[in-house]
Every structure is written in C-alpha cells, then in structure tokens.
C-alpha cells in the first residue's frame, strides 16, 4: 500500500514538482536549512528511508548494479556538499550581519602558513583516504562485464553511462538535436560565461548565501533539479523502452503505457478548428512558430521593458542578453516537461520534413 503510493508519487510529474517546491522552500528558509540540526535530521531521515527501501528486492536489484554504485556515492557527496556549503554560508551570513568578517577572513585565517607541513600533509592525508577507499571498492565490487558485444541484439533499456543519463532523460521531452547537442552546448557555454555575467563583487573567496542569493539559487536549481535529479530518474526509474517504473516496481518489459502525445499543430487545427492540417508546412506550424518567437524574442523584450531596465543598465547589454538567453534555454526544459505532463504535448513546432522538432 505504502509502496504503491511511493511508486505512484515518484512519477516525474509529482517527484519533480515536489523537488522544486522543496528546493524553493529551502532557498527561502536558510535560517532553518543552514543549521546543524537540520543537516543531521535530514541525513537520518534519508538514511532511514533509503535503508527501508533497500529491503525491497526490485529496488535492490536496480540500485546494486555495479555501475549504479557510483551514483550512490555521488548522491551522498551531493547531499553533503550542498548542505555543508549552505551551512557554512549561513554561518558566515550571521557573522556578517553581526558586523564581523566571514570565517575565512578573520585575522587568524589570513595569516600565512608554510605549505610544508600544513598543505602537504593535508593532501597526503586525503590521498591516503582516497586510495584506501578506491582499493576497498575495487576489492568488494567487481567491474561489470556482460556478454560480448553483439551489434544485432540491443539490450532493453540501452542506457548511456550514468553521467549522461540526465541528457538521455531529456530525450523524453526533446528531440536528440536539442537534448543531445543544443542543450549540452548551452550548458557548457553557460558555465563558462558565469564569471562574466555575475558582476556581484561580493562573496569572492568565502561561503555565503545572503550576499549572492540569486546566483546560488539559479546555479543550484540547474545543478540539483535539472542535472542530478534527472540522472536519478534516468538511472533508477527508467526501465525497458525507457518507460517509467516506480522504485518498487519490477521492470516488466510488457508494461503498457498510453502514449498519445499530440503536436501543437494538431491541437490547433484538428481539435481546435476541426479542419485538416494545412499542406503548407509553415502555415501548419504557425502557432508553434509564433509561440517560439514569443518565448525567445517578444517575452524577453516585454519583461525587460517592464521590469528589467535597472538590471540592463547595471549589467550592460551583452551580459544582460546573454543571461536572458541562458535562462530561457535552461527554463525551456522544465517548461517542456510540464507541457508534456499537463497537455500530453509532443512538439510545439513539428517539422519532421526538416528534422526540426521543438
């Protein structure tokens, strides 16, 4: 009963929505998130739930696949690093509010120390720990090796390595040219552009949240919700035919899922106007083209005119429009996800004639 409820609620629509709501709350209430009590409480809760989930055979099968073990390590590190960075940021914010220096900037911490032994011994310590960790991992878990390569028989599901599963999960919502090429390029360009867009001089060289709220919230949204979270779905909750399976569901390749996704042009012409699709490609897709144009050009211009003048003047045109483009690119993913979930929308612009589907 409980397991069925969890299976149901871990469907992307519910789990992703829950995740971003919790994320928004966390960003709002740093006074709670940035405390040790919260960190320990969350850790114990997660461990308890995870331990209970491990007792389920089908969940255990998926999670104990050798190549999935790195993801458990990733999750542990992502959890710890996110909380710890926010905790340290909150501690520094309290110090700054009291008129003190951030912890990294106290006279004691500004003092110079010898690299030998201070730095060199710390590095040695980390290297030894890491070596022990790797050797133990290597002894207890054999590297996977399946049957010899057979180009005529594809396994189902065929999955990319786990660090690309966020991208593979995007394939549900976007065509390969978007999910596999355009969005990754936007991610790389966006990351490289961060230092040139973010002109806030504060928070350079110490943990803080209050001094750079929007930068941190924006980055963490992309990192946690659109990258890490999608990797979890792609790895643990996608079975044969890339069908969704709850964590306690057996991967039965015969699970039937109603897939009746509809293009926007079909919504408009057939369902809306009750006429056949026009022969002319551009006329057929006119609504989607207008919407896309509106999203990429008209909406940003309007938003800028109405609310963005200050920011535009402060940042300069190049920075401002690059940021706008990157935000639009990033938000196109959750927008497309929700359009799919609510309206079973397949493509906003569907031009298979040019392989141009959006």
């Amino acid at each position, binding site marked *: 009963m409980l397991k069925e409820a969890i299976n149901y609620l871990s469907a992307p629509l519910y789990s992703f929505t829950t995740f971003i709501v919790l994320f928004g709350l966390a960003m709002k209430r740093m006074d709670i998130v940035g405390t040790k009590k919260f960190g320990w409480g969350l850790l114990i809760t997660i461990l308890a739930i995870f331990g209970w989930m491990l007792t389920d055979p089908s969940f255990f099968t998926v999670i104990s696949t050798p*190549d999935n073990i790195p993801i458990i*390590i*990733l999750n542990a590190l*992502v959890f710890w*690093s996110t909380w710890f*960075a926010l905790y340290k940021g909150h501690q520094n914010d309290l110090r700054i509010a009291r008129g003190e*220096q951030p*912890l990294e900037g106290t006279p004691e*911490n500004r*003092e*110079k120390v*010898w*690299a*030998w032994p201070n*730095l060199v011994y710390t*590095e040695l310590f980390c290297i030894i720990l*890491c*070596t022990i960790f*790797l050797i133990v*991992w*290597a002894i207890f*878990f*054999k590297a*996977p*090796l*399946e*049957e*010899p*390569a057979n*180009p005529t028989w*594809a*396994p189902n599901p*065929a999955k990319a*390595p*786990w*660090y*690309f599963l966020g991208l*593979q999960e995007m394939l549900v919502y976007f065509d*390969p*040219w978007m999910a*596999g*090429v*355009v969005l990754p390029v936007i991610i*790389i360009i966006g*990351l*490289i552009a*961060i*230092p040139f867009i*973010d002109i806030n*001089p504060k*928070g*350079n*060289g110490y*943990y803080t949240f209050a001094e750079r709220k929007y930068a*941190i919230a924006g*980055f963490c949204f992309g*990192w946690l919700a659109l990258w890490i979270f999608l990797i979890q779905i792609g790895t643990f909750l996608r079975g044969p035919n890339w069908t969704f399976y709850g964590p306690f569901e057996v991967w039965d390749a015969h699970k039937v899922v109603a897939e009746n996704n509809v293009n926007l042009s079909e919504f408009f012409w057939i369902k809306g106007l009750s006429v056949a699709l026009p022969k002319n490609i551009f006329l057929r897709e006119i609504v989607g083209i207008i919407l896309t144009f509106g999203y990429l050009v008209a909406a940003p211009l309007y938003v800028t005119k109405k609310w963005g003048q200050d920011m535009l003047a402060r940042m300069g045109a190049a920075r401002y429009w690059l940021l706008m483009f990157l935000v639009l690119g990033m938000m196109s993913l959750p927008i497309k996800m929700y359009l799919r979930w609510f309206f079973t929308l397949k493509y906003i612009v569907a*031009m298979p004639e*040019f*392989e141009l589907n959006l």
Partner: protein
Amino acid sequence: MSEGFAKKVANTQVWKAIFRHGPPNNARNRAAVVAGNVFLHLHPIKLKKSGVQLGYTWCMGGLTFFVFLSLTITGVLLMFYYRPTAEYAFTDIIGLREHVPLGIMRELHRWGAHLMVITVWIHMFRVFMTGSYKPPREFNWGVGVILLVLTMLLSFTGYLLPWDQLAIWAITVGSNMAKATPFLGHGGPGAMLAKIGDFVMVSDKNDVRFQLLGGRFVGEAALLRFYILHCVFIPLVVAVLIAVHFWRVRKDGGISAPL
C-alpha cells in the same frame, strides 16, 4: 636514538645529493623543500591559513588530480594486456579477470574513472559556492569547465573498450546524439538543405557521427578510435590543460580567500 639515526641519515652524502637541504623543520628548509622539488613546487611556499583548511576546499580539486594520476598508472598497466580489436578486446578483458593474479587493476581503473567524474563535479560546485570564479579567476574557471567536459569524454571513450554489450550499446546511445547535430549530422535539422541537385552533402557516410565512429555504427573502427582518444589524445589535452589550470591558480593569487 631514532632521532639520532634520522639525523645521521640526513647528514649522509646520498641524502644531501637528493634533497640538497636538511629535514624541513626550520623556515629555511621548509621553503627549500617546496621550492626545490619539481613536484612540490606546484605549491606556493606559504599560503593563507583559510586555503589549507579542508572545510574550505574539501580537497576535491586535488583529489581529482590524484585520481587522474592513478588512472594514468592503472591505465598504462592495463594497456599491457589489452588489444583494441573486435577479435581480442573482450577476451583480453576476460583474461585480465581470470589469469592476472591479484587483478584489481581494471576495478581500480573503472571505479577511479567514475570517482573522477564525481570529484570534478563536486570541485566545480565548491568553486561556485565560494565565488572563486570571480575576478581575477574568470579564465581559470573556463579552463576548469573544459577539463570537466574532457573528464566525462575520457570516461565515455573508455566505456567502449571492454567491448561487451554494456559498452557498445551505451556508446551507440551516446553517439547517436551526434547524428542529430544541426547541419553536421545526417539526422539533424538543416542537413537535408545541404543538397546539390540529387547529391546529398551530409549523409550517414560522412557526417559527424561517421567521423567519430569511423563508420556508420559502433564497430571495430570505432573501437580503435575510442582507444586512441581514450589512451592518447584526450589525456594529452587534459595534461596540458591541467598544467594551465594549476599555473593559473598560482598566478591568479592562489586558493581564493576574502579580498
């Protein structure tokens, strides 16, 4: 007695020939040990206390470099046993598992590869959260992003080499993305516009995926290409960029700290 012995060793001609200075227990020798050693001179001689604290750096960048070095060593050892051909690749991996005593080299290499992807991600997260990409470190952040992408490509190209079902289908899924590249892949938008009469300029015989795989599917040519990319080409690029990255960490003022 042991202290006396250590002192004796430090006074031998051999010790002096190698290290050229006494044990690093005074200011002069502590400076000398870092400045005079080719490996240790990556470090500054002195640095701010905030920069050596594990609570600040998490040592993630350093560990990424360390894992890269272990991957280089285990990778070279694996190359002694592995031939990148469709005939031998899989059986060589079996042989590695069955016949090489105490064989955890492949495990160390595979888990290390996963670990490097993880540590480099967490390193980037830490650098972001401390605002360390801000001036004067903008350029080095960019170098870091390229290194992060190359780390994933290193891991990805290595994924094919065991030549089992897991390998070829993961690479098939991944490389199928390339065929959707706008204008450059035969399944991507715009490719069919590049036509002269009946002559198709971008087809599955010459698009980016073909260049990547050396064929229209993941076959023996792809295995050789990925092998060279994995063992020679990308590591060389990464090594150069790591040098630039470390150099710029020093030149941009060392590990970031409040201004």
